[in-house]
Every structure is written in structure tokens, then in C-alpha cells.
């Protein structure tokens, strides 16, 4: 309990720092730290799958995005820098936010006891899905449509990011060209970490059917390894019009949809799994989805095409 109180105070402190820090870079670093502390909170809330996702995507990848953006936006002159908001506005904002927080806090205390829960139906139907991890069962079986649509969300976000490229750069390569310094520490790190990271990523994905983990967490680690490889200049990001890249991106959702449609024939409904083959089907979906998500996440971090393919 004391530990929880301390952790909560720390989280709130770092979050407050993120808001009030003047320098954007400092705020972003604070945000990354806040994310990692939040992952600890998730562990204390007995949600290890969420802790992994928060650490990997919420703090890690989001932090990389924010760091990259903060340096690029800083290059241009900030026209409103130095203009202090009026004290009256500040006071009004503080008042509003205190009221909102208080209202939510009161509502939290008013939540009913005993809390309604779906844990019992989840446990009862777990055997039919062939899985041991209840969160994976919810993601891939009970509410699989949400997961399918969420993968499409990622794909649309990627298309949206790509659409920001100027017309002449379409079909080009995302991100800057990082030159490899063969003796540098970044290259050494990449050569050492990436194979291990890939194995860790695959393991976390694989073990997600019975233990905390799963496709999103594993995919994030694979994406991070890809980003590390490009950052160190060992490999260059592919151009956005390469056929194999497009096929990699759509492979996951396409297999998901295909097996969903096959569910009409096999088990009488979209995204239904016949009990004997449930685990196998879920696995057949998860492998391409993990690879596709990894590609989507890595490309979302890389950004829109910025270099033309032809020099």
C-alpha cells in the first residue's frame, strides 16, 4: 500500500513535470519516464499484458515519435514563444481542471461494490478457444472484430502519414538516410541487439497464448529492432511503393478477414472458430498479423516518404 502510494505520487509528479516543463525536449523525456512508471502501475493492477503494451507502445514507440517530432518542429521559429497566457485564463483553467478531476474522483468512489465483471464468462469459455491467456482470448476470440478493425486503423493511419508526402516524393523512401559508421557504438549495438531482440519479440508473441504477451507486444519489439537497424544505417527503409512491402502490410488483415469469412462455412458465423481447430486458426491469424503490425509500427515511426528513389 505504501509502495502504491509512493508510485502514484511519482507518476503524478512526473506527469505534472511533463505539463509544466518549458522546454519541449524535457517534457518529452518526462513523458517517456512517466510511461515506464505507468507500466509499473499496470503490474500493480495485475495487468501484465497491458504493462508490456504500455512500456513498448505507450512509452517506447510514442516517445520515439515525440522525440523525433520535437527536434524537427524546433528547427522552425516558434512564433508564439514568449507570450505568456493571462493569469486570469490560467486561474480559470486550473479551476476547471480541478473540478473535472474532483468529479472523476467522486465517480470512482461511487463505483458499485461488488464490481460487475466479465471474468466468469471469460473463464468459462476459455477452453473453447484453446487459449490459456484470458486477455488474448478476449482480443482474438470474443472481441476479435475489435482487433481486426484496430489493425485496419493502424493501416489507415499509415496511409494518412504517407499521404503527407509531396507528389514528387511519392514512391520514395521514408525518413532520413542514416549513414553507418562501421566502428561506431550504434552499429555495434544494432549488430548485437537486433538478433536477440528479434528472438525476444518472437518469444513474447508466441508465449502470449498462455502467458502475458501476444501479438502487439511482440510486434512492437520486432518494429523496434527494425527501427534500430535503420537508425544505425545498416539497412535502408524500403520505398513505400515496393510490392513486397505492400503485401507485407496487408497480409495480416487479409488473413484475418479470410479466416473470418471462412468462419461462415466452418462454424456458422463470421470470425467463429470450430472448437477443434480454434487454437490453430488463431495462430494462423496471429503470425501474419504480428508481422504486418510490426511493419506498420516501424513505418509509422519512419514517417512520410522524404527521399526520392531516383537520385
Amino acid at each position, binding site marked *: 500500500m505504501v509502495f502504491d502510494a509512493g508510485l502514484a505520487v511519482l507518476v503524478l509528479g512526473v506527469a505534472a513535470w511533463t505539463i509544466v516543463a518549458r522546454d519541449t525536449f524535457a517534457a518529452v523525456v518526462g513523458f517517456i519516464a512517466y510511461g515506464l512508471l505507468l507500466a509499473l502501475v499496470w503490474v500493480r493492477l495485475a495487468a501484465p499484458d497491458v504493462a508490456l503494451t504500455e512500456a513498448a507502445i505507450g512509452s517506447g514507440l510514442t516517445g520515439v515519435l515525440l522525440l523525433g517530432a520535437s527536434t524537427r518542429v524546433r528547427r522552425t521559429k516558434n512564433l508564439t514563444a514568449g507570450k505568456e497566457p493571462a493569469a486570469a485564463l490560467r486561474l480559470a483553467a486550473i479551476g476547471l481542471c480541478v473540478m473535472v478531476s474532483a*468529479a*472523476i474522483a*467522486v*465517480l470512482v468512489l*461511487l*463505483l*458499485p461494490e461488488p*464490481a*460487475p*465483471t*466479465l471474468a466468469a*464468462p*471469460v473463464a468459462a*469459455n476459455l477452453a473453447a478457444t484453446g487459449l490459456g491467456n484470458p486477455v488474448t482470448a478476449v482480443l482474438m*476470440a*470474443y*472481441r*476479435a*472484430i*475489435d482487433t481486426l*478493425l*484496430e489493425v*485496419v*486503423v493502424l*493501416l*489507415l*493511419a499509415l*496511409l*494518412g502519414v*504517407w*499521404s*503527407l*508526402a*509531396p*507528389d514528387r516524393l*511519392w*514512391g520514395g523512401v521514408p525518413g532520413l538516410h542514416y549513414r553507418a559508421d562501421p566502428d561506431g557504438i550504434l552499429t555495434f549495438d544494432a549488430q548485437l541487439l537486433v538478433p536477440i531482440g528479434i528472438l525476444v519479440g518472437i518469444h513474447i508473441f508466441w508465449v502470449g497464448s498462455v502467458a502475458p504477451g501476444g501479438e502487439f507486444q511482440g510486434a512492437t519489439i520486432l518494429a523496434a529492432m527494425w527501427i534500430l537497424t535503420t537508425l544505425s544505417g545498416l539497412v535502408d527503409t524500403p520505398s513505400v*511503393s515496393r*510490392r513486397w512491402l*505492400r*503485401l507485407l*502490410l*496487408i497480409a495480416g*488483415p*487479409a488473413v484475418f*478477414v479470410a479466416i*473470418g*469469412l471462412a*468462419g*461462415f462455412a466452418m*462454424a*456458422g*458465423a*463470421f*470470425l*467463429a*472458430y470450430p472448437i477443434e481447430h480454434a487454437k490453430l486458426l488463431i495462430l494462423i491469424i496471429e503470425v501474419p498479423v504480428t508481422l504486418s503490425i510490426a511493419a506498420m509500427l516501424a513505418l509509422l515511426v519512419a514517417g512520410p516518404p522524404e527521399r526520392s528513389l531516383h537520385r
Partner: protein
Amino acid sequence: MPGSATANGFLLVLAVILPFAGVLVSLALGGRNAERVALIVMPAGLAIALAIVVAVWRTGNALQYFVGNWKPPLGVAFRADGLSAVMILTSALLICGIGLFARAQFSTPRGAEARAPLVFWTLLLAVWGALNGVFIGGDLFNLYVALELLTFAAVPLVSLDGRAETLAAALRYLLFALLGSILYLLGAALLYGAYGTLDIVLLSARIHAQPVAWAAISLMTVGLLAKAALYPFHLWLPPAHAGAPAPASALLSGLVVKAPFFLVVRLWFDVMPGMPERATAQILGVLGAAAIIFGSVVALRQARLKLLIAYSTVAQIGYLFLMFPLAVRPEGGYPWSTAAWTGGILQAISHAFAKAAMFMAAGLIAEALGHDRIAGLSGIGRALPITVLAFGLSGLSLMGLPPSGGFVAKAMLLTGAVAEGQWWWALVVLVGGLLAGGYVFLVLARALGDPIEPLRLSAQVSRRRQAVVMAVALCAILLGFAPLRPSDFLQIGRPDTGIVGLR
């Protein structure tokens, strides 16, 4: 227990999955195939929409489907009642029209893949799939994902031409939309914490008047209002809708902005039936009235045609929210049997057709003239008569003059206001109609006037595109033949349906 799946429920799955399958194929094949895929999906999707409407009509019941055969509260349900069915059909028709219109503008050139056509055709299908997802979703979190899909598909359409103004407009749109999503999700968290489910039918059985329920619905409503650009959350809409290419503006103003409104209706009348007080509903009405007055007045002051039309959207969205004070807790009878219920939905549909036709007409005019300044429109009536006529017909619907869907909608709202004894809304509707007449005639007078010097067109506009615009505008007019009484079809699938005539 929300009953069992109905026989034609699989149509609902197809309505959502088919457009997204099109998105996947477009991206994979790339190049010219995006347009081809869209042209194949459009008639197929239209057929599915018609099948859904026919199925709902024939059975007289809502369609229901449990995805994966998992019943709520564990699984996710898709449901299509009369309300969903008309919105699905409207979306399908309008997207087909917009697609045909956009063929000339976003035709794919030979050779290497071009950015704008690929992005446009893919996102057109994505918006369609997301809209269908919103209209049939039976689970509040599934609806959240559908709303996010809609946002991510719509925002890049705003900045498609890459100018700085449209990029800024797209960013502001995205930020408002994200604010809306977060508030919506906060409400959903509270609802799950209190009732243990997010399924709409189950919630309606479990929910009762408690602070947690009130807070959740308020948060979700405010979030959806931000997405629907209801005053005072309208700031993002005019630059975004005016800056997008004409087919995208038609899509955004016609359909995308109606989805959050649809969800507010779902929340108020399906998730917590009978709970909202009249006083709370008056707030929505006041905001709607403010939107009508403000939007129309600012539209009158615009110098550019597309901005005028965008501010007109801000105003016409206000009419939608007049439905709430008039349909909540009516004097005897059910909300869905009031005139205002039919009026509000009819307003959503007829505005969709009318506004889309208007934006497409404005696009043609701008292409022909090379600019869209209202002051420079003189003589365009002679050069593009069909287009200006289509614009005029759409304006009829916006003003609420017969024969048009807008007239029926506003007449129903007026009748509802009088029947409920809330005459002040009748005043707002009438004033709004007058103001709308003002800005429509502003444009028409210029367009039909004689130019000082002979008009030089910078581009030729094909007759086929003008015909498409005309067809869409005629849809808004055809809706004017809807009977002036509460619709039976829109009452299909309502709980405790008692079909009541005009009171």
C-alpha cells in the same frame, strides 16, 4: 439476453467488411487498381445496402448478428434497425454518386503510382466501411473503434492537396476529433465500471438514473458533439470542409459529420431510454439553435463559395439537434413516434444529399472559373446551367422549401415543436430558413447575373459530371415526396414499438 441472431444478419458483416477488403486490395495492387477496386465495390456495397433495407422492411424487425457467435456481454453484436438501414442506404447512394463524380478529378495516370488518386480511392472505401460500422455497431467500444476509423480515413482527405492551410485544418480537425474520442472513452469506462457491459441492449436494461450514468452520458455526448461540430465546437469544420477537394468535402459534410449525431441518438434513446430529462434536452436544442443562427449569419458574410457552403453545414447540423428537446419525453407516446424523430433523421438524410450536391457543384464551378470567389460568379449560370440548377435545387432543400426533403424535415420539426408546446424552436426553424434563403440567393443572384466582361472559362466541365451532381440534388428533392407524418420504417426495431400517427 438480447435475443438471437436474425437470418439476414450476415449482411451487416458484409456491409462493414466489403469496403475494408477493398482497401486492402487497393493498397496491395496499387497504381491504377485503386480506382478499379472502388468502382467494383461501389455497386456491390449498394446492393448490400439495398438488401439490408429490404430485409428490415420485410421482417419488420431489426437485424441482429453476433460476431464469432459470442453473445453479449462477452462478444460484440451488430444491429440494424430502421434508423440504421436508412443511413446505410444513404451512405451507399451518396458514395456511389461521389465516386462517379470524382473519377475525372482523381483519375489515375498511366505509369508510376500517383499519390492523390491512390489515397482518395482507398480512403473513400475506408470512410464507407467506417460509416457502416458506426451505423450497425451494437457495442460502445466497437463504436469507438469505428469512430477512430472514420477519423483516420477523413482527416487525410482534408489535406489531400498538401497546401499549408489544409494541413493546418486537418491537424485542427484531428485534435478536435481526438478530444471527442477521449471523452467518449472516459464515459465508456465509467459505464463498464458501473454495469459490467458495453452492449447497447444490455446497458439499456441495466442502466438507471445514477450520478455515474449521468456523468458517462454527458461525457460521451460532449465528445460526440465535438466530432459533430455542433456550436461551440464548430471551429474546425469550415476550414477543413472548405479546404478539402470537392468530392471529399461532399463526403465530409454529407456523411462523416452525421455519424457522431447518429451515435448521440443511439446514446440518448437506446442506451438510456426514458432517462434524459426535458431540461437536459433543451441544452442540446439551445446549442442547435445557436449553430443555426451563427452558421447562417457567418455564411452570409463569406467571400468564397466553399466557405459559405461549409458554414451552411455548421448551421444545418444545428437542425439535427433540435430533434432532442422535441423527442425526449413527449407528451404521451414514444420518442420515435413523434414528428421530430422523423424530422431529425430526414434532415440528416436530405442534408446529406443536398450538401453533397452543393459541394460538388461548387467544385465544378471552381474548376470552370479557376477560382471560387462569389463576387466573380457572374455569368456561370449561362456557362454551366445544369450545375447551377443543381445548386439551386440543393438550396431549396437547405431552405426548407417544397418540394424537397428539407421541407418535409423542417415541417416535421415545426409540427413537433407546436405539438410539444415548445414554440420557440418553431421560431428558430423559421428564422433559419430565412437566413438560408439569404445565402442561397446570394450565390444564385451572382451566378445568374450577367458578367461585366465576357466570361472566360479556364476548363471545360463534362456533361456527365454535371449530370451526376444533378442526380444527387434530385435525390434531395425526391425525399420531398415522403409523407408528412412519422415514418413507420424509422420505428422498426424500437423497443415497445407502438406505431403512432401524427399527434
